[in-house]
C-alpha cells in the first residue's frame, strides 16, 4: 500500500434478482452507485474518478460497456478505468480504486461492478465448442466438480459438509434484504434431496444466476476522518493483494492453488496479521459451490490443511461462531458474477463499519474480503478494519 491511507466511506448495492426486468444495465449500475454516494453523503461532483469491473463482455454481448455507462456513473470528463479479471474482477476492481487513492492520484474514487446474467447464459458461454476439441458442455460446475472430489478424497470429508455450507449461507441470506435467494423453508433434507448436477454438487449447493451491481466510495485519510467525525464510521483498508497463475500450468494444485496461498499470505502481511483465524472477525469468501468454503478456508490459511470441513461441521463458520463466513449469504445466495467479488469486499467493509444490519457480526473489528476467478487462477483479497492502519 502507498503512503496515503484509504477509507471506504460509502457502500451501495442493488436488490439482486434472477431478472431485474425493470432496469437497463445503465439503470442497474446507477442504482448501486447512487446508494453508495448517498451512504457517503457525497454528490457526483465530489468524485474524481470511476473504476468499473465486470466479467467478460460476451456475458452480456456489450463490448466495452463502460463507455456507454459514463453518463450513468458520473464519469463524463473524468478518468474512467476498466478492470478485467474474470470472476475475481469485483475484488481486483476495488483494489485498483484503493491503489489510486493510496498512490495519491485521486482523493475520492467511485468503484462499481456489475453483471446482468438474465440477458445471456454465462454458464454455457464458458463452454464454447471449439473445433477438434472434446465439447465439455460442462459450465463452471462441471469444471470445478473434479477439484471438489479431489478435495474430498484428500481430506476424507464426509458428504454432508457441502449440504451444511449451503444451508448456512441460505439462512444467512435471510438477514440480508439485498440477497437474491431468500429461502426461509430450506432444510438439510431439502438440500440433500435436491438434484445432483455435477457429482458431488447438488442443485441447492450451487450459486444462482443473478442480475446485480455493487458500488463503493473510497477516499483518502481526510475523507475517512470526515466521515468518522460526522458519525459515519469508515472501513479502513488495512491490506490488499492480487495474485494469478496460469490455468494449465504443469504440477498446478487446483484444489489449493499457490496463487491463493500467496495472495492470502501477502494480504495478512500487509495488514500486520500473524494469526488470521484468531484476528479476523468476519470473512466474506467467494464460494459459488458449497464445497469451496472448506477448500478456501484451508487455502486462506484460516485453518490447517485438511481441517476446513471440520470448521464447517462444528458450526465455527456460522454467524455466532468463532469465524463467521459469508454472513451476507455469500455467492451461494447472490451471484451477479462481475459484482460478486466486490460484494465480498463491500460486505467485509459493512461488517467493520457496524452497518451489516441483521447479518452483523457483533463488534467486528477486522474483516477479510476474498474473490477468485477463472479456473481458480485469479485471486484478489483485502482486509478492512474499524481502526486506522
Amino acid at each position: 500500500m502507498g503512503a496515503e491511507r484509504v477509507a471506504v466511506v460509502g457502500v451501495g448495492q442493488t436488490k439482486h434478482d434472477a431478472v431485474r426486468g425493470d432496469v437497463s444495465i445503465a439503470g442497474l449500475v446507477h442504482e448501486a452507485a447512487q446508494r453508495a454516494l448517498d451512504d457517503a453523503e457525497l454528490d457526483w461532483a465530489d468524485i474524481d474518478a470511476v473504476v468499473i469491473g465486470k466479467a467478460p463482455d460476451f456475458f452480456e454481448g456489450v463490448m466495452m460497456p463502460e463507455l456507454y455507462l459514463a453518463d450513468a456513473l458520473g464519469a463524463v470528463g473524468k478518468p474512467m478505468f476498466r478492470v478485467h479479471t474474470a470472476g475475481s474482477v469485483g475484488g481486483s476492481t476495488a483494489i485498483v480504486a484503493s491503489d489510486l487513492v493510496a498512490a495519491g492520484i485521486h482523493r475520492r474514487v467511485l468503484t462499481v461492478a456489475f453483471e446482468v446474467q438474465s440477458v445471456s447464459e454465462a454458464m454455457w458461454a464458458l463452454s464454447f465448442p471449439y473445433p477438434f476439441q472434446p465439447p465439455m458442455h460442462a459450465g463452471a460446475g462441471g469444471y470445478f466438480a473434479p477439484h471438489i472430489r479431489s478435495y474430498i478424497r484428500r481430506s476424507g470429508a464426509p458428504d454432508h459438509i457441502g449440504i451444511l455450507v449451503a444451508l448456512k449461507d441460505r439462512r444467512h441470506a435471510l438477514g440480508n434484504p439485498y440477497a437474491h435467494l431468500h429461502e426461509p423453508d430450506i432444510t438439510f433434507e431439502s438440500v440433500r434431496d435436491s438434484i445432483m448436477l455435477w457429482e458431488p454438487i447438488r442443485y441447492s449447493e450451487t450459486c444462482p444466476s443473478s442480475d446485480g451491481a455493487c458500488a463503493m466510495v473510497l477516499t483518502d485519510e481526510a475523507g475517512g476522518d470526515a466521515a468518522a467525525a460526522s458519525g459515519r464510521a469508515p472501513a479502513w483498508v488495512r491490506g490488499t493483494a492480487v495474485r494469478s497463475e496460469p490455468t494449465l500450468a504443469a504440477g498446478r494444485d487446483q484444489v489449493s492453488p499457490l496463487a491463493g496461498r500467496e495472495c492470502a499470505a501477502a494480504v495478512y502481511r500487509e495488514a500486520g496479521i500473524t494469526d488470521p483465524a484468531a484476528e479476523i472477525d468476519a470473512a466474506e469468501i467467494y464460494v459459488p459451490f458449497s464445497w469451496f468454503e472448506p477448500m478456501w478456508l484451508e487455502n486462506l490459511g484460516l485453518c490447517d490443511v485438511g481441517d476446513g470441513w471440520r470448521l464447517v461441521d462444528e458450526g465455527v463458520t456460522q454467524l455466532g461462531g468463532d469465524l463467521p463466513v459469508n454472513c451476507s449469504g455469500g455467492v451461494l445466495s447472490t451471484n451477479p458474477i462481475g459484482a460478486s467479488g466486490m460484494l465480498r469486499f463491500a460486505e467485509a467493509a459493512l461488517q467493520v463499519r457496524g452497518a451489516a444490519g441483521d447479518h452483523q457480526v457483533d463488534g467486528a473489528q477486522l474483516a477479510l474480503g476474498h474473490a477468485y476467478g477463472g479456473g481458480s487462477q485469479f485471486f484478489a483479497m483485502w482486509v478492512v478494519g474499524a481502526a486506522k492502519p
Partner: protein
Amino acid sequence: MTDDTSLRAPLVIEYPFTRTTGPVVGAFLTALREGFVVGTRASDGRVLVPPAEFDPVTNTPLTEVVEVGSEGVITSWTWVTEPVPAPQRPAGEEPPWDPSVDAQPFDRPFAWVLVRLDGADTSLLTVADVEDPAQLHTGLRVRIRWRAEREGSIRDIEAVEPVVSGEDLP
C-alpha cells in the same frame, strides 16, 4: 498456402442475447413500434434523440419523454457504393436469428445519414433510400418511411426519403 490435407471445420460464433431496455430505451422502442419517435429532455433543455437514459452533465435519470417529428434534416451522410451482403451460412445450418439483421439495410447502394428530426437537438443515425448520391446534401429535408410490420426495433424505420414537396432547409 492452403494445405488440402489439413482438417477443417466451421466455427460459427453466435450467441443468443436478450436486452432489458429499461424505462427510456423501452419507451423509444415502443414508440417506434407505434410509428413515432421520442427523445428525452436533458437538464439543459435539449431534446436528445435517440434518448439518453442519464443526463450527460448532471448524471441524473432523464424522465421527461418528448415526442418529435417524423421529418427532419440531414446533418451528415455517407454513400455506400457496395453494400455488404448477409454472411453465407455453412451448408445445412439454419441461422437461429433473422438473417436480415446481419446484412446491410439494402442490397443496392444507399446512404448512412444523420438526421435531426423536427423538435430534436441531436441527430439520429439511419438510412437514406435514394438512387443517386446527387440527390443528397446536408440540410436536405427528409421524412421517415416506416416499415409496415413493426416490432419495436430501430429497423422499424425502413429509411428516410427526401420530402418532395417541402423546402430544403439550410
